[in-house]
């Protein structure tokens, strides 16, 4: 196996129309400004794509980037990023994914991949150190995501694959990488529109060595220690997976119930991580390498299956008033095989259930009943019957049938399973998140409810906090490591661990912008610097995150995004839940005004020229 010190810095550019590929070497400047992963993938598209491109047309592109840390053995770095223009939202979407593909691509000698054009017949890409082969995929067309990956596994270290949902252009079709997914925004449909069934990489042709091995080993040990002693990473998530969030959310009034009409439910415990661990005798099933081990599998109805993640349990469980984990697992399996985003599927089905109740839509779906849900999910994947409309997502459906006020989405992306009426900062986070109602842009609820460091019902300091989290998550996704490393890498540092709690609360509630500057986030740039041999300070690291956020916003503004889109569904702004006797309304406008200020946007939410200059973003295809 050949060795690469640092990173290969080579990106494959694949043209499916002409069936050719070229090699692009990322400039030093772009590496410095965008690091890799999400940031670099976004920049690659920024340089190449015009606004107004049809997301399902040939001119749309997918950019995948593995980041510098993948392949080095740093903890929780078995992830890669992908960016495209979403057919569901019409704006940019970016995803972070585990599974084997990222490692296979990287160890085939490529840091990244850009795919454009459209093949005239079903094809899959086989990548090794020599480049790309365009292989016929007619026999694969129609296969589910898992069978597809199996079918091409003979000479592959890892693959991406779409299922029937992607082939049929379901707007929220996803892309499988093992049992992980490029989940949100419809990347699967983009691949499907290109007749691209799968991408496979040989892997194990190169190994990666850090430039400064000693520094790397030290940082890696520190990271591992932090992970192993943090309660969340080595406790709740390691033992119970992300479904450890169920009981927390239920207690905090964040659990989505009956299409976000409620925030708690007496039966929530049945779908908690704790109960599922016991019921299904779970064991680890995770990305590699991973030290947190949040992924689990279990024995469900005589089959070994991945335990559904919290988002699935929330949106396809409590949000549909279904508290049977076996049924939720059935839904999860169908989405896994068909290749569909469970959050959007759950959110859309919840809309359909409520619209049916109100006589706006005709279906047999009912809250509290799993009857018909499996069939509808398959109908969505195959664009049949009511599935044809539901495949377009809740925004589209509500525009056609009515019920926009209870289509729980922002910018066209269905909301994740945290009700922001229980955590106002999360409301701001959803409203301003670049890809839509995304919980991974900023997890404000973590500080507000889980850690209790901020007043969940106040607007104070939320803008600064959301901005900070967005910056750090974008920076982390550009390295790339798993965002769950935020818990150990921040909370186990001296300041956070040993500061008196009242002091932390005081600082966070009244001057989060200042308080955040004292949080030690050095571990991430330390790892990056050890691998590349280049300097990366904390400020520069956070500035990368800010740059990526602003760039993504610029690209979205070129598609028409502005203040009017930074909002929440009417239900969340003006309806109250039984669990909140004080009927507290989210003060979105106040938080938004402040957010624009700290972000350097004008009052319409457009990045100012001075901000763009300060971020060192050069003019691209976007005006």
């Amino acid at each position, binding site marked *: 196996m050949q060795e690469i010190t640092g990173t290969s810095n080579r990106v494959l550019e694949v043209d499916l129309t002409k069936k050719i590929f070229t090699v692009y070497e990322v400039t030093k400047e772009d590496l410095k400004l965008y690091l890799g992963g999400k940031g670099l993938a976004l920049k690659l598209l920024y340089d190449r794509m015009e606004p107004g491109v049809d997301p399902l047309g040939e001119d749309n592109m997918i950019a995948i980037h593995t980041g510098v840390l993948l392949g080095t053995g740093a903890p929780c770095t078995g992830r890669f990023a992908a960016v495209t223009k979403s057919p569901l939202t019409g704006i940019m979407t970016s995803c972070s994914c585990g599974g084997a593909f990222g490692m296979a691509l990287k160890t085939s000698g490529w840091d990244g991949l850009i795919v454009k054009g459209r093949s005239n017949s079903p094809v899959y890409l086989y990548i090794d150190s020599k480049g790309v082969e365009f292989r016929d995929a007619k026999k694969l067309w129609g296969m589910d995501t898992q069978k597809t990956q199996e079918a091409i596994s003979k000479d592959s270290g890892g693959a991406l694959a779409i299922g029937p949902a992607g082939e049929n252009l379901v707007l929220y079709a996803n892309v499988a990488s093992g049992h992980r997914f490029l989940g949100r925004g419809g990347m699967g449909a983009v691949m499907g529109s290109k007749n691209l069934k799968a991408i496979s990489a040989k892997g194990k042709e190169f190994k990666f060595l850090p430039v400064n091995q000693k520094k790397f080993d030290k940082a890696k040990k520190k990271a591992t220690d932090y992970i192993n002693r943090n309660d969340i990473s080595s406790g709740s998530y390691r033992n119970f997976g992300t479904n450890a969030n169920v009981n927390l959310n239920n207690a905090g009034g964040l659990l989505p119930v009956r299409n976000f009409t409620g925030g708690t439910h007496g039966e929530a415990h049945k779908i908690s991580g704790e109960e599922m661990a016991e019921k299904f005798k779970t064991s680890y099933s995770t990305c590699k390498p991973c030290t947190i081990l949040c992924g689990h599998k279990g024995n469900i109805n005589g089959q070994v299956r991945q335990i559904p993640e919290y988002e699935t349990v929330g949106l396809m469980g409590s949000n549909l008033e279904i508290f049977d984990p076996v049924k939720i697992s059935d839904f999860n399996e169908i989405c896994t095989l068909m290749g569909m985003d469970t959050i959007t599927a759950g959110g859309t089905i919840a809309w359909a259930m409520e619209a049916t109740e109100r006589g706006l839509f005709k279906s047999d779906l009912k809250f509290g009943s799993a009857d018909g849900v499996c069939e509808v999910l398959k109908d969505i994947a195959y664009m049949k019957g009511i599935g044809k409309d539901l495949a377009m997502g809740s925004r589209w459906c509500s525009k056609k049938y009515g019920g926009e006020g209870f289509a729980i989405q922002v910018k066209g992306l269905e909301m994740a399973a945290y009700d922001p009426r229980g955590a106002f900062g999360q409301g701001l986070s959803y409203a301003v998140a670049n890809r839509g109602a995304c919980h991974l842009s900023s997890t404000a609820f973590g500080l507000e409810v889980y850690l209790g460091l901020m007043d969940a019902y106040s607007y104070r300091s939320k803008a600064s906090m959301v901005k900070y989290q967005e910056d750090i998550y974008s920076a982390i996704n550009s390295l790339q490591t798993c965002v769950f490393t935020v818990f150990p890498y921040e909370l186990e540092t001296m300041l956070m661990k040993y500061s008196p709690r009242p002091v932390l609360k005081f600082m966070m509630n009244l001057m989060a912008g200042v308080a955040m500057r004292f949080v030690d986030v050095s571990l991430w740039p330390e790892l990056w610097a050890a691998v590349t041999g280049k300097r990366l300070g904390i400020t520069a690291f956070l500035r990368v995150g800010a740059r990526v956020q602003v760039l993504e916003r610029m690209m979205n503004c070129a598609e*028409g995004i502005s203040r009017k889109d930074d909002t929440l569904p009417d239900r969340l702004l003006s309806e109250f839940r039984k669990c909140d006797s004080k009927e507290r309304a989210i003060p979105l406008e106040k938080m938004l005004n402040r957010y624009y200020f700290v972000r350097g946007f004008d009052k319409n939410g457009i990045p100012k020229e001075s901000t763009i200059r300060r971020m060192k973003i050069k003019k691209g295809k976007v005006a």
Partner: protein
Amino acid sequence: MQIPDYFKFFNKTRIISGKKALENIPYELQSMDAVKPLVITDRRSADDGLARVLINAYGDSGLVIGAVFDGVTGYPSTKTVLDAAQLFRARGCDSIIAIGGENCASVAKALNLLASYKTDDLIQFESLPDNMHLYPFAVIPTSGSSGRETSTRSVIDGRIFESDELMPDIAVIDPRMLKKRGKTETVLPALRALAEAVEASAEDVANPMNDSFAFASIQLICENLAAAVNSGGSGKAGLGLANGIAISGIVWSNAPEGIGSALAEDLAARTGNSRDLCAAILLPYALDYKLKNTKKGVRGELLLPVAGIDRYCAAAESDRGSLGVEAIIKIVKDMGKYMPLTLKELNIPHYILESTAGAVEDSFAKQYGKGSAMMILESAYNGERVSGGKK
């Protein structure tokens, strides 16, 4: 006067406007054998004390208000209507008063259907008969009302219910109910109402009844807009403006949709911008196009309500149409301090314009093709006058 070969006009709404207009309500309802209204309003109006003002106006009438429902939100939903219907029945109400804007009126109209037909199923009213026996219904427009309060339409959960019978029996415009609002909040619905009234009267198929209502609406809005903006929609100017807007709803219900309104509606749905804003921006460009590029141009009579009798009489007959358009353009331009004047300022990507032009093409194929729609949109995008000029 131009009389088309065939025309229809319907209005059921009596307008009572001015000082202590509210005090007429008990008497008016009583004349319709109603003594116990349910008041439908929203939280903002309730917090402004408007329901209290109405209750006080009932003062010595000897009659009572059955209940006040302030659950109307920015999105009128079936649930809201059902909750209101439950309260209506529980309190034994026999009439409905809506205090607020379009959303409150929509909920009130839908409630009237459920209450009058003693049902909870709104869907059975998908198509509505002309002769319905509904409970007496009064609407009290507040600042920021759009004109749709007096129209034939109710929109619930995005579903449209339309019937002449849904028009209110009375519209009461009382200065006490016109609380001060922001300037932009005052301008936008007023300009949309103006756009609808102007398009209704500028169309070749306008009829003399609708013309007279439209011209009244146009005159009231044009005369009072600037002063009402300064007063935030309150005071004497606010009252005049509110009257103009209320009348526009009646006009809108009796006229076919104009190209400007259709483009605004589609653009708003496509981009998420408010309908009022899109309509306000597009009005001058749609008119400019009609003036320069259609056979019949814009009727000279438009100049009269817009600019007043003196300017109308002073202008040569052949110039009145273009002068009327110029006057409207100036009115909108003068509001530029409070609103964007081009589609570009709304950050609407240019490529969206083609989609919008294509979408309205079918409805206007005879008069305006896709090319015409694009000319209007392009001009509105760049803020440039429409090219052309047969006239």
